[in-house]
């Protein structure tokens, strides 16, 4: 701060410093301004002067030149010698002027001009002028004019032109200079005005700042002084820029500090005085009060209380009148006597020890003491013993103040006894009432046991106990381990007790305690077990077992328990009945709710009282679910709204709910929902004691039965139609044969027709019986494991004699064993193959393929016949379904074949499906589950056709089915696809069907061609001649033919199938 003080300046110094700074700034700016003005002025002047000089010299030159020519012409005209003289003078003048001009700063034009002029005038003076003068003198004006026009004039004119130009330019320059100087003057005037304003501003700023330095501290001083005046602390910031102000602040602060200190001192002294005064006054008051109080107390004590003062040892020093009166002693009998003569012996020695401990410590004791009066009667004192302490804090006197409360004490004791008694009685009543509640109101067995056992626990203190319902195995217990409880329940442990309970409903056993029961007792302790039960001599129901250790059951308690058990018996049987009723009820309820018929109970007023779940499903209105009673009109309208024939249904309802209507009746109605279900509604009155109390409606969904009925009648109608048509033919033609004379060929035709139609009739009846048996499940199936490929070949064999169909089997199934009825399989395959043959009337190939997929054997029968329109595909398997078009009509049939086929496949847990395109053939496929015996061969088993690495196809022309099967097993297991063809006809057609690895031919076939003819035909066709042929025959080799037909190999039967497979494998 000191350093800062040094930095501060006095006001005067500050003023001088600021003024000097201001002045110097002002002067500096002014001098720079003036200097600039002067320099600019100088430059302008110089420019002006040089211009004037050049102007003058040019003017002079022009004048002189003019003069020369003026004089020359004067001389030419007048030949006056004076003129000639002047001419020469002027020429000299020109030279001078030229010299002057040249000395000036010239630009390029001016220099050229000056040179030209100088040359010209030199020439003029030396050549032209003497020549001209000569011509003048000779008077030869012609020559003179020629000379003049020779160039003299031109140069002179040029110069004159220039002078004129220059004059104009010069004038402009001067005007410019004048304008510049005027502008300069304007700039400087503005500058000086601005400078003046700036200077004034700066001055104001400086003065202002100085004033601020002075005014702020002064204001602070004013504020501080005001503060001081109001008695606040005042302190001034001392760090001012101006020295005088800092000093002033310093002095002020010092003064303020001193004033403050003085003031505080004074205040403190004053307060102390006031406090002392008040304390004094208060003390005096208190003293006065205490005195009065003590006086009152004394008086009061004397009149109402017993008072006795003793020394520290309990020797009575003083007693008051009351004390003597109550204790019946005279005052002198008591004084100097120990106070213990008053002891009644009611209190224990500890009581007195406690008392003395309290008061010897200097504390006050209060409590009730029972004392004995002189005549031996007792009295109760509500006493306060106050010790008086000496200055060491030791009691030197005790004062006992007591009030006789003998009478109060008596009442109090009596009251307490009474209260306790009442409380016990009340608790007992409460417990009993709870028990009663439990006995009468509880219907839950567990809850009942809990309540009752709780009552026992509360009422008869016991250590261990259990209350068991023997039949339901439910119990409540206390202090027993679960093992023991289990023993008790399972009747193993307590057989004797139960037996005894059957005869005696309550008994008690005294026994020695076991070690864990006796606990820490040293002498012998007995345990008392009480058993009680309800039931009858045959059966014990509720058993109560209680154990007390070292504490017997009193006869009253036994009696109480016995009575209680009687009550429990009643309650228990009530619960039994309740449970039975409840069980019955829930059984009935679940029967009602779970029957498949809708049930509805209507009371005598016709209002709906109850309905079961099934009915709610039918009606499906939320209000019905709330189980409220529904008004008669409401439910009838809701129910009839669901039916198609509403008037009939409503009439039925109204009739049935009539009070006098007691018949059982029913109607059928169809519901108007989406499914159009058919319902049968039965009604039956409900009777209680012979009076009608309501009506039951039962709703039975007979849609199924209805459909079956409809189907049946349709079927009957269809069958009758189907039967009547062939019958018409048979009867009609027979009648014709019998009644008319006919030509023999007509007779034959009729007979043929009759035969055909009779056959049709037989087929129809057979098929109809078949489908009937299959659909009703009455068909007996002789199931066995069979190889289906063998069966297929057998069936194909039966078609061998057919006209123009090539039937072959393409076997790529590794497994062909299925569990099936062979006869039904034959029927199924015959059905499907004959369909394929029938519906490809133009002939062609019928190919059967078998393969494995998903553990199934899939058989497809494919024809290239007339096909089935797409619209009919879905219904192909329904009975009497035939495609309605003219071509199928011609083919005929019973319309039951596919339905029978489906029935057979379904019975074998398989599936059947059909694919077809009109005019493009039909493929019927069915699948059958494979027999699982080859599980271990999983690899081949699970392969689908596409996965199999087929090595190619082998055509097997062999009509010995068992041999063909054997060979095919071997070939298939080696990865070949086997095509079986059982006929010798058209082998080439089959062989061109697909690329072949080889053809195996049996030389002896039953039908048609011999083996060699067959081979010949194969070799004839270009499509098949390259295929290797293997002969399989029982006939010995014929080497010529083998060579002729280039037979690949020749196997003589019997041979191992492996041999053939090996040959084929080599061919691949």
């Amino acid at each position, binding site marked *: 701060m000191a350093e800062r003080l040094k930095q501060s300046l006095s006001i005067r110094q500050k003023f001088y410093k600021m003024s000097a700074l201001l002045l110097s700034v002002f002067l500096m700016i002014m001098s720079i301004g003036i200097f600039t003005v002067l320099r600019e002025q100088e430059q302008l002047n110089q420019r002006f002067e040089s211009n004037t000089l050049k102007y003058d010299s040019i003017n002079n030159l022009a004048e002189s030149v003019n003069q020369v020519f003026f004089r020359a012409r004067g001389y030419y005209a007048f030949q006056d010698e004076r003129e000639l003289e002047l001419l020469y003078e002027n020429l000299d003048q020109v030279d001078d002027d030229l010299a002057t001009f040249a000395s000036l700063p010239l630009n390029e034009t001016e220099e050229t001009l000056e040179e030209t002029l100088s040359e010209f005038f030199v020439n003029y003076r030396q050549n032209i002028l003497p020549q001209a003068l000569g011509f003048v003198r000779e008077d030869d004006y012609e020559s003179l004019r020629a000379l003049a026009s020779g160039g003299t004039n031109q140069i002179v004119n040029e110069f004159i032109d220039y002078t004129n130009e220059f004059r104009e330019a010069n004038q402009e320059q001067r005007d410019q200079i004048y304008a510049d100087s005027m502008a300069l003057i304007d700039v400087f005037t503005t500058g000086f005005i601005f400078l003046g304003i700036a200077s004034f501003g700066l001055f104001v700023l400086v003065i202002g700042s100085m004033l601020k330095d002075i005014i702020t501290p002064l204001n602070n001083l004013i504020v501080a002084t005001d503060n001081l005046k109001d008695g606040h602390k005042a302190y001034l910031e001392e760090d001012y820029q101006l020295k005088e102000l800092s000093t002033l602040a310093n002095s002020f602060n010092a003064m303020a500090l001193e004033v403050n200190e003085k003031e505080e001192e004074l205040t403190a002294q004053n307060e102390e005085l006031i406090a002392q005064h008040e304390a004094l006054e208060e003390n005096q008051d208190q003293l006065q009060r205490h005195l009065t109080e003590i006086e009152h107390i004394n008086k009061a004590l004397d009149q109402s209380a017993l008072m006795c003062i003793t020394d520290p040892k309990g020797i009575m020093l003083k007693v008051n009148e009351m004390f003597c009166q109550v204790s019946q002693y005279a005052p002198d009998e008591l004084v100097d006597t120990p106070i213990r003569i008053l002891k009644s012996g009611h209190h224990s020695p500890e009581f007195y020890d406690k008392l003395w401990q309290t008061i010897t410590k200097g504390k006050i004791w209060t409590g009730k003491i029972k004392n004995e009066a002189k005549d031996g009667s007792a009295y109760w004192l509500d006493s306060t013993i106050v010790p008086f302490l000496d200055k060491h804090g030791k009691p030197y006197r005790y004062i006992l103040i007591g009030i006789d409360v003998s009478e109060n004490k008596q009442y109090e004791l009596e009251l307490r006894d009474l209260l306790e008694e009442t409380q016990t009685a009340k608790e007992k009543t409460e417990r009993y009432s709870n028990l009663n509640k439990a006995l009468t109101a509880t219907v839950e067995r567990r809850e009942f046991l809990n309540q009752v056992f709780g009552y026992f626990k509360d009422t008869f203190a016991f250590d261990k106990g259990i209350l068991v319902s023997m039949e339901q195995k439910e119990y409540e217990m206390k202090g027993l381990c679960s093992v023991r409880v289990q023993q008790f329940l399972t009747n193993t442990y307590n057989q004797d007790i139960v037996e005894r309970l059957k005869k005696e409903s309550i008994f008690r056993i005294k026994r020695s305690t076991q070690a864990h029961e006796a606990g820490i007792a040293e002498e012998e302790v007995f345990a008392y077990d009480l058993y009680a039960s309800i039931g009858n001599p045959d059966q014990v129901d509720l058993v109560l077992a209680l154990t007390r250790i070292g504490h017997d059951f009193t006869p009253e308690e036994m009696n109480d328990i016995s009575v209680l058990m009687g009550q429990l018996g009643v309650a228990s049987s009530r619960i039994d009945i309740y449970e039975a009723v409840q069980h019955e009820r829930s059984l009935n309820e679940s029967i009602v709710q779970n029957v498949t018929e809708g049930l509805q109970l209507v009371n005598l007023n016709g209002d709906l009282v109850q309905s079961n779940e099934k009915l709610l499903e039918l009606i499906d209105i939320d209000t019905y679910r709330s189980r409220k009673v529904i008004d008669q009109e409401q439910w009838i309208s809701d129910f009839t709204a669901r039916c198609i024939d509403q008037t009939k249904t409503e009439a039925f309802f109204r009739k049935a709910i009539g009070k006098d209507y007691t018949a059982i009746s029913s109607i059928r109605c169809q519901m108007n929902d989406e499914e159009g279900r058919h319902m049968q509604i039965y009604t039956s009155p409900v009777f209680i004691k012979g009076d009608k109390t309501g009506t039951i409606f039962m709703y039975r969904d007979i849609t199924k039965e209805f459909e079956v009925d409809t189907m049946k009648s349709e079927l009957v*109608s269809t069958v*009758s*139609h*189907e*039967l*009547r*048509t062939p*019958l*018409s*033919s*048979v*009867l*009609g*033609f027979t*009648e*014709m044969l019998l*009644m008319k004379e006919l030509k023999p060929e*007509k007779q034959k035709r009729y007979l043929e*027709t009759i035969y*055909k*139609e009779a056959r049709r009739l037989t087929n129809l009846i057979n098929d109809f019986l078949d489908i009937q048996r299959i659909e009703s499940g009455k068909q007996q199936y002789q199931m066995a494991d069979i190889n289906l490929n063998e069966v297929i070949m057998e069936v194909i064999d039966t078609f061998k004699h057919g006209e123009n169909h090539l039937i072959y089997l393409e076997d790529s199934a590794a497994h062909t064993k299925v569990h099936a009825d062979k006869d039904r399989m034959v029927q199924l395959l015959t059905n499907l193959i004959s369909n394929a043959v029938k519906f490809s009337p133009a002939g062609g190939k019928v190919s059967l393929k078998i393969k494995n997929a998903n553990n199934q054997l899939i058989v497809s029968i494919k024809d290239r016949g007339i096909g089935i329109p797409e619209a009919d595909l879905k219904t192909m398997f329904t009975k009497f379904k*035939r495609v*309605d*078009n*003219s071509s199928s*009509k*011609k083919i005929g049939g019973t319309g039951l074949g596919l339905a029978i086929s489906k029935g057979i496949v379904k019975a074998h847990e398989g599936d059947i499906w059909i694919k077809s395109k009109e005019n493009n053939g039909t493929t019927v496929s069915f699948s059958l589950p494979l027999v699982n015996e080859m599980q271990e061969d999983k690899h081949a088993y699970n392969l689908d056709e596409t996965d199999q690495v087929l090595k190619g196809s082998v055509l097997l022309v062999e009509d010995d089915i068992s041999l063909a099967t054997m060979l095919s097993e071997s070939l298939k297991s080696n990865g070949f696809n086997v095509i079986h063809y059982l006929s010798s006809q058209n082998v080439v057609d089959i062989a061109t069907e697909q690329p072949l690895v080889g053809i195996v031919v049996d030389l002896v076939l039953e039908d048609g061609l011999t083996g060699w003819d067959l081979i010949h035909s194969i070799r004839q066709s270009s499509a098949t001649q390259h295929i290797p042929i293997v002969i399989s025959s029982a006939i010995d080799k014929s080497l010529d033919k083998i060579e002729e037909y280039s037979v690949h190999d020749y196997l003589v039967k019997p041979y191992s199938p492996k041999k053939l497979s090996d040959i084929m494998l080599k061919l691949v």
Partner: protein
Amino acid sequence: MKKILVVDDEAVLRMLIVDSLEDLGHPIDEADNGFDALDLINTVDYDVILLDYMMPGMTGIDLLEKVDKSLENTSVVMLTAKTQDKDQQRADEAGVDIFMKKPFSPIELYHLVEELTNG
């Protein structure tokens, strides 16, 4: 000469009917389905039509309902294996004059048509 039309999808039955009526000497047209029959009925005025009930595509009843012109002067005989009362009722409603159950007697048919063509 009276014109007779036989409509039945069973060729054997058509043959039976035609043969049993051939002695009457009337020309007999045949149709094996309802559509062809409808065309014939609409173009030719037949005196007697012998009509099967159950035919694929169009039943005999459907056929009668589709005929444009009046068949007042035509006797329609329905030959059918449908024998229930309701079938007969429907046939009556459709304008069938005589309902004949299959199997029928060719001799009876002969006499019936003879009667119809004489009247």
